[in-house]
């Protein structure tokens, strides 16, 4: 009986460990170059205000006139509100905002750049989202 339990536990643990890296609350350092940071300014096209992390989509116009799409990972919806960000009343899709970001080590696809949002500037006020 005990032996069976041990085997079952070991099997369960092994399964958990296989699944673990994909499910774990990932470290920003694993995905993003947190030593680098710079500011991008662009048009906010979409917010996915979802758990565990929100996703922000920004179109940035480069000096050559071409538009580069950015996808920014940020805090949870509740986290953003607790930072004082008025997500429903002050942010509007189609408006231009500045984001201080750390770029990803690897972009998800050739067309989109991925970054981690460190701060956002709304109406001249910078809201620090997270200091990595």
């Amino acid at each position, binding site marked *: 009986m005990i032996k069976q339990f041990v085997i079952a536990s070991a099997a369960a643990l092994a399964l958990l460990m296989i699944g673990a890296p994909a499910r774990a609350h990932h470290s920003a350092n694993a995905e993003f170059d947190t030593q680098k940071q710079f500011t991008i300014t662009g048009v906010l096209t979409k917010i996915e*205000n979802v758990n565990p992390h929100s996703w922000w989509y920004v179109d940035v116009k480069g000096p050559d006139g071409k538009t580069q799409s950015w996808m920014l990972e940020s805090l949870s*919806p509740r986290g953003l*509100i607790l930072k004082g*960000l*008025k997500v*429903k*009343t002050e942010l509007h899709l189609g408006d231009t905002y500045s984001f201080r970001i750390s770029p990803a080590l690897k972009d998800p696809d050739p067309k989109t750049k991925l970054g981690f949002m460190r701060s956002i500037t709304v109406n001249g006020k910078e809201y620090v989202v997270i200091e990595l």
Partner: protein
Amino acid sequence: MNDIKRSLAGLGCALLVATATVVQQSAEQPGAQAKQATQVGALQLPPAAQRTGNLPLRDVQTSYSPAGKRVSPQDGFVMQQKPRGDTPRDADGHPDLSGSWGAAFPNPIGAPGGLRRDGAFEADQSAMQRGAQWNKPIYKPEYWEKVRQLDYSRVDVDPVYGCYKPIGVPRQNVPARIVLKDKQIWLQNSVENGLRILPLDERKRDENDYQFSTYNGMGLAHWEGDTLVIESVGFNDISWLGWEGYFHSDKMEVTERFLRQGDLLYYNFTVKDPEVLMEPWTSYTYVRRVVPNPVRQDEAPECDERDFKLLADPYLRG
């Protein structure tokens, strides 16, 4: 004892009127039958209950006021339910809303097979229900077509269609169970995401509440006399106010009112949404009776959407 006295008085009254009807019928020959039908209809409600002003929670400002003595079927039904016993109160003197609240009232038109023929309503049920709505939210004219579209579209435009879809406040309606204790109120609707736990300590509204996008809203509870009032903000724009395509914006604010009298709980809500509604909309008053021997609430089995296409008409809601 009082109850017996009351029912005796009621019986006496009914007898008197019945006698009067018989006398009247014998006096007037033609057309007497029609008149009698009206009188018998009127007999079903005590005279004092024939105006909606007598309905608990009906003193809320609303443009919904039926003309004259006409009473909507919903309000008429609520008025016929009489509270029994004393209203239990907590240490602060407020009505204790704790309890299991059920809607197992006797069917006003009898069991199936009586007045209501088996299957009589099913063929065009939503059409019947639309016709019976006396109290509708008044949308801005530019949204009338949208409401109609949502109402008459495929069933799956309804945000509760499918598995594990929260219904949200206020569509989830009266909670099935309430616990009032230690300056908190627990409100539980037996639906997905149906539990709300709110402090009852006269705290002020947190301005951050407006920034949330939730199904149940960020509730703030307080007492107004014997009525518990819950004001909620911070809704999403996904849920509906009712199955009829009543959508709302994420700026919606909802005020719910709970009033306990004896073993009855009266409930209504007011929706304020200036983005899409012409004016605040106050619902019907709903009533529930306390369930003296509540059953255990069991875990719901896993939901599988496989059969949904077979269960509902995939093309039309109407």
